[in-house]
């Protein structure tokens, strides 16, 4: 009995937290602008007069992209630390954190998107290879 009361209270708290969160979205400015989100929503047949839901979509997309980018950044750092372990002199050059396709494809594979480099023909077999393996 008391357990069910607790859960209902907790549920009530969660609901109020959610409504508070949605209300706070009115003041929050997502990185993805409202106009852009509205454009894509209208393109996809999503009709909603509520600005809070549009903001929620923007925030959700922002979160998704931020997660993918964080993953890619981790991949980038891991790859660079592996390179640094092998070649000390390359440290300065490769220290810059640059979003590359290989890190991104690894990060995207985790969320179910398969991205590959476009296939191309190279002069030598080592041209298109990973710089870490190429250096060896």
């Amino acid at each position, binding site marked *: 009995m008391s357990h069910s009361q607790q859960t209902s209270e907790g549920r009530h708290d969660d609901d109020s937290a959610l409504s508070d969160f*949605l209300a706070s979205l009115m003041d929050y400015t997502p990185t993805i602008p409202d106009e852009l989100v509205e454009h894509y929503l209208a393109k996809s047949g999503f009709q909603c007069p509520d600005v809070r839901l549009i903001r929620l*979509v923007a925030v959700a997309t922002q979160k998704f992209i931020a997660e993918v980018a964080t993953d890619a*950044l981790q991949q980038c750092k891991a790859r660079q630390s592996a390179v640094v372990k092998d070649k000390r002199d390359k440290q300065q050059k490769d220290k810059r954190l640059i979003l*590359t396709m290989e890190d991104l494809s690894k990060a995207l594979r985790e969320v179910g998107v398969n991205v590959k480099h476009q296939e191309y023909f190279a002069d030598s077999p080592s041209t298109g290879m990973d710089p870490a393996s190429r250096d060896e």
Partner: protein
Amino acid sequence: MDPKSKTLKTFETPPASPSHFSFTITKVAVSQICQSIGFKGSKTSALETLTNIAAIYLQTLAKSASAYATSSGRTDSNLFDLIYALEDLASVHGYPGASNVNNPLLRSATVIDIMNFVESTDEIPFAKPIPHDNTQKESIPPKNCNEFGRAFEQRSHIPRWLPPFPDPSTYEICSKTRFHKSIRRENSLKIFGSLRNSDTFAQDIEQNDSIGGRASCEEEERGSCGMELAAERARVRFKMCVGGEEIVMGVDLRNGVCRGGKRVSWDNNYSRMGEQEGEVKRRRL
């Protein structure tokens, strides 16, 4: 310096289509997110891929939510549809509590994750103000917005997307229009054609037709230089108001041809002048 020129270049090279416009804006937003994560730069292909994925994610979310709304018999999506859609998209990665069937929808872990994300992330507003494309809205009303066009536009039974009426000078009663002396001669062909009374005008047309298609073509080509009319026709007088002063042109305008005192219409003189231009000039000299 370098990135600025790069952005300028990307703005210039492709044609400005709406999809490219939205893509560019998405690209700015995605690069802002990447920068906030800690990236210092990006390859163009990687950034464009991530931008495409952001757009596809957003559209998939919207499509999924609208599909849930449609299956419930609604046209407007609500929060529950959106949470269903978020759970659908998060199910690839997995989220806590996904296996619990009795978990209430509003306590979904996806929403809680978003709440935590919003609390933990700094607010990064979009870098640039978005230029609103007002040109399309303004082009719907006619460009030459004179009183006539506006009067027609205000009529509610005419749809707004219809093209504007042509310029009123092309169909308005021309005796009301005022001419300047400088343009009078240039427009002699068209204006005087419509200035005349309808019966004489019809007469002229018949006479022109009798001359033949070749002559009328020549008239059009020569344009302002004058036109070949039939030699004989009725005297035409017309009144015009220039600056409140009434001018009877047949009388007032005495050029070399009607110096003898004979009243001849100005138009007739002028048309003759076209064919006898050299002679008239010699007389004037």
